């Protein structure tokens, strides 16, 4: 387009106005952010507590009430305990909330009047009370149980008191990780066996018993595994130790180059595909605003990466990955990670992977109080119980709504179509209704899982040390509020991204199935 043909002022050009407006907005946002940031720096400098990550490496004087460790050796470890606790509740919560929610959703579609009404009643009650109130309620319920007295000392099968709920548990032996890995592998191969038998069924049209075959395979392989075949898994541990040793001698520049080359590879691939796309339009590379913007951003990002890898941040990340001293003293890099795997999966381990242990109430130290023993059985603490029950119940109510509307959306027309084909009701549900309902249900279900993950943060109200609670304790101790907030943000964003990409993955998979 020849611009000279048009004689109008440049500021009346729509494109100019668009970009001028955007740059103005960008300037405003950037400027106010810069203002807030510099204000924060000045304020922090005035309080003698300048921003730093150092607390992650030093030993905080805090105690975490439950988790894989109670006296963390570093701030980072405290955060790890919080993350582990949060994930513990999230994973088991998602599992049980899905089960309860599905049952309730189906019950709400029941033809039985009393079942339908009472489930709906439960849903209406739980849904309309704030989750925090419910969590406090469950805490109060457990606390109202009798206290643990001297008379309670001794071994129990299940014991409930104001201290929590104690129940039997599998105690891991030193070979537990080996067996666990074996178990996961066996699940994978069981699936293979199932698929193989299904293919036989489809190919020859004779009954091939896929379920029975795969079940037998699963049982036999695990009996073998328990008996000692788990030692085979030690190969992975050995491989990990080799990789770990390699990383130990890996230079820092290697990591930097690795990052930069991976980044450049993707950037160049993206740019070339973009250019190819526009170029092909009969030799007229017509780039829209969006295209230009994308290209510029890509190049800028690549430049930032290249420069950034040699700036303190990039150097620190590389050091961190290599387990060297970074912002704080870390021993959590790649070599340590692989060494850790080697420690868990060593073929020299032996013995039964798990043994059952029963809870026991014992004297707490030298005091007159009674406590559950930490070593045997498992104790569900009050905080865990309240958060878990609250979150699971609350989420399952919302999941029941998802399940109900999902099934209802499909059931209407499709059921009739299926029944007219002469399918049985159960076959209809399995082959026609459920696969389609699942497609509809998946995205809102993912949303509910995400809500559950975020709602576990209410554990702080009942002193359950998940990441928010631990973070708060840390900043009360160290004063690094902003750093802790950034950690929260990074962690939850990571969880959100992970969950939503899992949901997206299955969504895509189901879409393909649909076609």
């Amino acid at each position, binding site marked *: *387009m020849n611009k000279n*043909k*048009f004689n109008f002022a440049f500021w*009346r*050009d729509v*494109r100019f106005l668009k970009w001028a407006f955007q740059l103005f907005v960008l300037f405003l946002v950037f400027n106010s952010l810069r203002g807030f940031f510099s204000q924060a720096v000045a304020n922090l400098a005035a309080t003698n507590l300048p921003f730093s990550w150092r607390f992650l490496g030093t030993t905080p004087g805090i105690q975490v009430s439950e988790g894989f460790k109670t006296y963390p050796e570093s701030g980072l470890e405290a955060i790890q305990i919080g993350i582990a606790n949060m994930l513990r509740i999230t994973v088991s919560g998602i599992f049980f909330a899905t089960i309860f929610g599905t049952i309730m959703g189906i019950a709400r579609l029941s033809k039985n009047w009393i079942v339908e009404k009472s489930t709906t009643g439960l849903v209406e009650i739980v849904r309309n009370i704030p989750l925090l109130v419910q969590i406090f309620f469950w805490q109060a319920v457990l606390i109202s149980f009798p206290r643990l007295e001297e008379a309670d000392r001794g071994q129990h099968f299940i014991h409930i008191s104001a201290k929590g709920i104690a129940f039997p548990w599998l105690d891991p032996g030193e070979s537990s990780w080996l067996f666990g890995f074996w178990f996961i592998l066996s699940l994978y191969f069981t699936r293979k066996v199932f698929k193989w038998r299904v293919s036989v069924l489809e190919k020859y049209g004779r009954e091939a018993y896929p379920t029975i075959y795969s079940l037998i395979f699963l049982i036999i392989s695990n009996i073998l595994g328990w008996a000692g075949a788990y030692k085979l898994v030690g190969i992975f541990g050995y491989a990990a130790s080799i990789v770990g040793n390699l990383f130990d001698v890996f230079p820092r520049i290697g990591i930097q180059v690795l990052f930069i080359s991976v980044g450049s590879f993707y950037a160049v691939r993206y740019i070339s595909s973009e250019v190819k796309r*526009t170029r092909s*339009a*009969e030799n007229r590379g017509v780039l829209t605003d969006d295209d230009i913007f994308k290209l510029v951003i890509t190049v800028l990002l690549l430049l930032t990466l290249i420069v950034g890898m040699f700036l303190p941040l990039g150097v620190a990340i590389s050091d961190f990955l290599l387990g060297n001293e970074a912002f704080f003293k870390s021993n959590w890099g790649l070599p340590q990670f692989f060494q850790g795997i080697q420690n868990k999966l060593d073929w020299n381990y032996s013995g039964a992977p798990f043994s059952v242990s029963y809870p026991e109430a014992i004297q707490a130290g030298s005091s007159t109080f009674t406590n559950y023993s930490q070593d045997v059985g498992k104790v569900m603490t009050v905080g865990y119980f309240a958060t878990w029950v609250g979150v699971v119940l609350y989420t399952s109510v919302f999941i029941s709504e998802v399940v109900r509307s999902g099934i209802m959306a499909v059931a209407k027309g499709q059921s009739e179509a299926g029944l007219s084909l002469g399918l049985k009701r159960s076959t209809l549900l399995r082959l026609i209704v459920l696969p389609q309902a699942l497609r509809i249900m998946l995205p809102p279900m993912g949303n509910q899982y995400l809500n559950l993950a975020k709602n576990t943060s209410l554990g702080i109200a009942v002193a359950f040390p998940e990441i928010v609670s631990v973070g708060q304790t840390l900043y009360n101790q160290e004063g690094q509020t902003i750093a802790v907030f950034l950690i929260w943000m990074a962690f939850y964003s990571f969880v959100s991204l992970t969950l939503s990409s899992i949901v997206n993955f299955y969504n895509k998979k189901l879409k393909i199935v649909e076609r």
Partner: protein
Amino acid sequence: MSIISAKDVKKWYGDFQALKGVTMEVGEGEVLVICGPSGSGKSTFIRCINRLEQHQDGEIIVDGIQLSNDIKNIEAIRSEVGMVFQSFNLFPHLTVMQNITLAPIWVRKKSKSEAEAKAMELLNRVGIPEQADKFPGQLSGGQQQRVAIARALAMEPKIMLFDEPTSALDPEMIKEVLDVMKELAKSGMTMIVVTHEMGFAKEVADRVMLFDDGQLVEENTPDEFFTNPKSDRTKLFLSQIL
């Protein structure tokens, strides 16, 4: 003096070239019918005329105004050129009356009473004055399209563009819309009509054009176009459609 003139207009959608250099002129008061197979670029072309789409090469001059990225010109063109869509595109949340008076009030800055009087007049003209207070969803397709014509006319445009105005209608409703369009043509309005209604073309059009593959294949008077077409492509097209 021509009111619309297009010179070598080109337009791409990514890899696909929708317009491959279209040159044409439309005189004032002229009724032009454009036909052609689907995907031939005829809709794209008339949408370029009021800048719902942007052409990427060549030039279009409407009523002496060159279409460009000048924000002033875009605003001016939009109020000079009325447009009627295939799928009506009435605003479903507004009544028929509000649909018609919206633009005169907000763009032409007329007073509400003035705009409503004008709207009533237009509704009379298209033959549905009794539907003024209904919502578009309550009207039939033919009535909706007539409201859409009234809405476009309310801006008192110099040119009216019709983008396949009858192809989303049931057969019995096509006539009522075509009647309104014929009446409009007789009143001396400059019109460009993209349509497959050959009867309409024969009866009303001053000129007929055939688009194919983004190009103007034939430009002719209706009589010549239907009885003695110049190009083979036109013959083929006519044999398929008639």
